[in-house]
């Protein structure tokens, strides 16, 4: 094996880990960063996206449309959840965690009852290509591009659109925004829907690569939480760099000792980072600026 293939292999591992961390964390980070709410049912929104994607693909739609359907359905479920539960708990952040955990339990067990313990998966598209002695899946490259696309899209949404401006105004000083005529409740609803939709998108994108079981959300949430905790409250200054750093930790540990040690590496990283930077990377960056 020569140096070039070795470098490519490392980059591929890194990109794969980065895409997984960023895609699974984005929805959580948007909701946490904008509203201070930790959505413990995040994994179940991902599961919802994956299931809807698989169901629509089985019904004959092409995969991209299926992923879109998964995203939209998750976002709609998000609107309902916000209206029924989250809205009443904004002044009690700890209770939001507890309530969303209850929702997660209902969603997991409800899916188990209604759909069964497993659902037929979707084949991974695009096949693979060869570099050196190893073959790589093209779809993983697509996922990496999708992660970059999501970050770019979020940046555009929050900086260049009217919704983005109103949303940022609402986070900074909610009552001032309300006094200036912003419907803050609507903004919160839409933000929650946006986060839920992003979770659905992650589910849809990863549906072709994994087995669909009601507890599949649990495979995502650890990574998602770790990324958000390390990143802090800001999606761009936090989630993206945290995804980068953690992807290095995870891919190095995984290729050295295996999948589990990749995850243990993440956990150790989060405990150390939190000890050093309690407000995460974005808190550190923002404090440096002011």
């Amino acid at each position, binding site marked *: 094996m020569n140096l070039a293939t070795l470098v490519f292999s490392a980059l591929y591992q890194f990109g794969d880990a980065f895409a997984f961390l960023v895609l699974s964390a984005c929805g959580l980070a948007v909701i946490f960063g904008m509203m201070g709410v930790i959505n413990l049912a995040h994994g179940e929104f991902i599961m919802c996206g994956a299931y809807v994607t698989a169901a629509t693909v089985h019904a004959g739609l092409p995969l991209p449309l299926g992923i879109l359907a998964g995203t939209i359905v998750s976002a709609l479920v998000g609107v309902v959840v916000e209206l029924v539960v989250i809205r009443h708990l904004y002044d009690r952040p700890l209770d939001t965690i507890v309530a969303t955990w209850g929702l997660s*339990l209902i969603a997991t067990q409800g899916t188990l*009852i209604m759909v069964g313990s497993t659902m037929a998966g979707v084949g991974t598209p695009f096949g693979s290509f060869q570099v050196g002695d190893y073959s790589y899946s093209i779809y993983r490259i697509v996922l990496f591009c999708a992660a970059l696309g999501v970050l770019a899209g979020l940046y555009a949404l929050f900086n260049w659109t009217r919704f983005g401006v109103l949303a940022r105004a609402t986070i900074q000083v909610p009552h001032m925004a309300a006094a200036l005529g912003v419907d803050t409740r609507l903004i919160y609803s839409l933000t929650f829907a946006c986060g839920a939709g992003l979770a659905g998108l992650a589910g849809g994108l990863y549906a072709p690569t994994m087995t669909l079981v009601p507890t599949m959300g649990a495979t995502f949430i650890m990574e998602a939480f770790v990324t958000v905790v390390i990143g802090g409250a800001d999606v761009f200054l936090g989630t993206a760099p945290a995804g980068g750093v953690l992807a290095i930790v995870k891919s190095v540990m995984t290729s050295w000792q295996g999948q589990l040690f990749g995850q243990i590496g993440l956990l150790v990283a989060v*405990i150390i980072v939190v*000890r050093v930077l309690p407000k995460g990377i974005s808190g550190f960056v923002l404090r440096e600026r002011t």
Partner: protein
Amino acid sequence: MTGFLSLFRRLEGPQTVGRGPAFWGLFAVVLAVALVYPLVSDGYTVGNTVYFFVWVFIALSLCLIWGYGGSLSFGQTAFFGIAGYGYGILTINFGSAYGFTLVALVVAVAIAALFAILLGYFMFFGRIAGVFLGIVTLAVTLMLERFMAQTAGPEWRIGSARLNGFNGMSAMPPLTIPWPGEPIVLFADVGLYYFVLGLLIFVYLGLRMLMNSSFGNVIVAIRENPERAEMLGYDVRKYQLITFVIGAALAGLSGLLYTVWGQYITPSSMGMTAAALPLIWVAVGGRSDLTSTVIGTLMVLAAFQALTIYGSQYALVFMGVLLVLTVLIAPNGLVLGAMNWLGRLAARLTQRIG
């Protein structure tokens, strides 16, 4: 002597519901019923009651950390699992002779507490609070579950104890009290019942005293306003760490007793669902009081077991609904609400008579 007596005076106070002769009279009646109960019941039911009691310890640990301390820990099951596995590994290696199971009990709980000191140091001295604390503790317990689940291979052994991956460890010896003549083996019926009941009363009364002491008052002050407590000169981090460690030891005791009770422990006892259940008991009971936590836990467990007849998935959906409704409608807990209502009613009645 007076110091000893003043300790007992701490049994009631501002941090615990229930005071006066009426409450302690009721307590004595419940205690008497609990003591007589195994004599009029069959072994299976008694064993099942022990199973309920075992969970009360982890509920009390969460009540202490979350209800009194105000830091929501999702990871109590991590200490549950650590102590459970610790007991299994120790007793399978060293057997149960010479009262070693009791040594293993202390050592396993101490291991859980040590782990809590390590984890708690990073969390509280890193000033993690609120939602982040919950996430880090949850990540820790999920990680432990995944780690234990992959230990199926024969290379995962500590001494002669195989960890057995997802199937978990089993066949560890039950608790054995050395006794002249023949050692007393506490099987999961009447023997273990009295042992666990004794521990439960000890822990319950001990926590009442602790919470009504100055330590407990500081803990509650930190929950109400950490900045103010800090300004008054208390090292918030130290108090939080101590609470966390006591809670972890209680959760460990729970896990250990669970292992003793069923003579098995599996990784799924540290999983997502297992971690959610204590939270439901404590939230539904009323997290900010010890008595309501105990009552709530026993009631929800009984309801859960009754529902499991129709399938455990349905029972779990019901638990989820119960949790969401409690948070939305009665955030202080159902049992605590009822207890406060009864207290007010009794006060009004005595006022009218007097």
